[in-house]
């Protein structure tokens, strides 16, 4: 078993070496990899970079909690699933867009690079400076659940909840959970079906990484218990599958999920 693992590892390394940086990623290429995030200070907000296969990539900048993309953590590796864009480099890095990134749960002291500000790296599209905002938050949130007339609400509605790697409910979820609760209350829902999944991601190295075995169940149970906990009258049922989802390197992050079907 162990030997097999080492052989796999070697295989990965050889492919790696063979590919080399000669085959640098082109615009439109999809990349999935795990590496250390890097913070580069600027005269305004810091930008977030990461290195992969000898190349420096730009992930995004610090904004605030309303942002669609949220920076990872130093002290942890980050799993990046993204597309290489043709935009000019930012902060020295090739721009990844669209990008999904998730913090790997285990701590990793080696991810500790902070680079100082340099005049040549300027952030001129800054929606929120590193202090007080000019208005409330940097990004407009979608209007909070537009009050649709009950008559027009569909009989059932499906909600997808996605998660960080190997993690369950977090700060990301109050918004989607409230949408579920509001809909269920508006239609006086009778049944809610919760389905938990265990994700997997095909990395650009050809290796597939999978989440822990118990994660699908944990997600289903947590979502179900939150929906019961807010006092919905509906009968909440759950199921999950411990078999990891198929991974093909295209938006595999969507597999780290729970589906909630709410019916009248």
């Amino acid at each position: 078993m162990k030997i097999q693992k080492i052989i796999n590892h070697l295989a990965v390394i050889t492919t790696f070496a063979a590919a080399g940086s000669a085959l640098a990623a082109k615009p439109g290429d999809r990349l999935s990899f795990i590496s250390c995030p890097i913070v580069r200070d600027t005269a305004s907000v810091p930008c977030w970079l990461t290195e992969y296969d000898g190349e420096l990539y730009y992930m995004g900048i610090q904004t605030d909690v309303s942002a669609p993309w949220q920076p990872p953590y130093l002290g942890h590796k980050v799993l990046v699933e993204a597309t290489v864009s043709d935009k000019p480099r930012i902060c020295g890095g090739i721009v990844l867009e669209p990008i999904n990134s998730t913090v790997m749960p285990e701590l990793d002291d080696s991810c500790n690079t902070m680079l100082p500000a340099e005049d040549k790296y300027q952030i001129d599209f800054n929606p929120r400076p590193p202090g007080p905002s000019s208005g409330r938050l940097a990004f407009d949130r979608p209007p909070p659940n537009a009050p649709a007339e009950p008559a027009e609400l569909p009989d059932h509605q499906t909600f997808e909840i996605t998660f960080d790697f190997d993690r369950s409910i977090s700060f990301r979820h109050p918004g989607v959970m409230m949408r579920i609760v509001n809909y269920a209350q508006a239609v006086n829902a009778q049944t809610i079906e919760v389905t938990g999944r265990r994700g997997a991601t095909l990395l650009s190295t050809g290796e597939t990484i999978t989440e822990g075995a118990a994660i699908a169940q944990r997600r289903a149970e947590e979502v179900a218990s939150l929906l019961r906990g807010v006092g919905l009258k509906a009968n909440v049922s759950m199921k999950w599958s411990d078999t990891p989802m198929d991974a093909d390197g295209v938006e595999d992050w969507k597999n780290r999920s729970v589906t909630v079907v709410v019916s009248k």
Partner: protein
Amino acid sequence: MKHLIESARRQVPRTDRRRLSVLSAMVALCMTGTVIAADAGHSPARQWWSPGDGAMLPAKPEYANGFGRFALVNTDGPIDTRKHPFFEPLGINGRACVTCHQPSDAMSISVETIQQRWRETQGADPLFAAVDGMNCPHLPPEKPESHSLLLERGLIRVFLPWPPKAADGSAVKPEFDIEVVRDPTGCNLHSEYGLYSENPTISVYRRPRPVINMRYVTASKFGVSNFIGKNGTLAAINPDTGKPVNMNLMADAREATVRTQAASAASGHLQAARALTPAELDAIEKFEMQLYGAQIESSGAGRLDEAGGPQALGPMAMANGRDGLLGNNLSNYVFPIGEGWYDLPDGKDADESARNAFRESVARGHDAFFYRTFWIKDSMHINSVGLGNPIKRTCATCHGMHMTAMDTANGWMDLGTTNLPWALEEPANPWNKRKAQMPLFKVTCHADQPPHPFLGRVIYTQDPGRALISGKCDDVGAIVIQQFRGLSARAPYFSNGSAASLREVVDYYDRRYNIQYSEQEKQDLVNFLSVL
């Protein structure tokens, strides 16, 4: 006395040393319990407020403190405290709410007042009651050492069941195991009161929080829903309305409302044999919700409530201000102070020049609080809520609520005040005769849990904070931010009293985040905090 004046001296901003003699005289007066003659037109101040004293609490009483004067505003007018459940002893130990929430001390209680009370009563005041006014109830009550945490750091014993119980009484399944590593108070290993007793209990030691401006503390207008913004779990519910609350009460948000809080305080701190009646709960809630407080005069900056002065200062600003508002922006500000205290001219005389210089320092301190960036790193519930780790931000990032500098909702965060390696610890070496004062716990997160993102699976802490209620690994050492009001009247600071002065608060941040403040910035920040 000498010691107290010394500590007042430490509190005095350096730019203001020449006023020290006046101040020492003031401190001396306070210490003898003499009523300070107020400026013409202001109500005279009382110092110690005894339970059942029966006096009227004036509509706008003022009280001297080491930085100037603190004032309360009762928007309902003077309060008749006779038979008032906040002021009457309701239990067997002779305490009332007012025992630990003293008007002169911004409705908290300073360690100076506690020491004074010990001297005046030889430790007989109900404040020192065994239940939580001692390091542990089994100790000999007459010895000051038995009350060392109260006498030296202003701390009350807070004892909570382990594992935690949910609001409905059901047991919460913790995500971690907890062990007692160090037990200087003898309580956590005690056969009756400790963690391994028949009713497993954890004792931590915390400062009484200021019971003023509760309209702000309990506001639920921003960031409140059924799910906690910090981690997506279920928010606490107001049992009377069924609606979620902002979870900003107590160091660990264990109380949903001021009513549930008052009920627990009566049975806990007051050892009341019966539950409070609905009428008593109404009276306490009504009193707390109409009570405002802030510093009103600064020994450096003069009156803080002058017409045209900084909008955020003085208790009337609190009485009239908007609650539940995010202030970390240029439309609301956390503390709107206007332009009036920047770039002031030389005064007519030396006094006015000194006052203007102090006001400019306050304005610079405000700017240090609001605009001065530094790297905020490894702080759970701020770095972990979508901003990234680290973030380059300011004090106001965590302290964002308009007028109070609390977090708008579920304001618990791990600043490091109770978790190692940042918590204040005695150096252990053969030359240091002092022993560690605080308990130390070892928390081991279960293997089926993700580790704490910044502290890993094993955490040493003096107070697990929110985790004592939620049972969550990620909540270890997370403490609900207190309001910044009346700071001058209620040293020491932080929930565990680990910062003896405002200067020590600022120094703590300088170390914690390697801010590299200049001496000037530190003084400006202290001066700014002292006028709130």
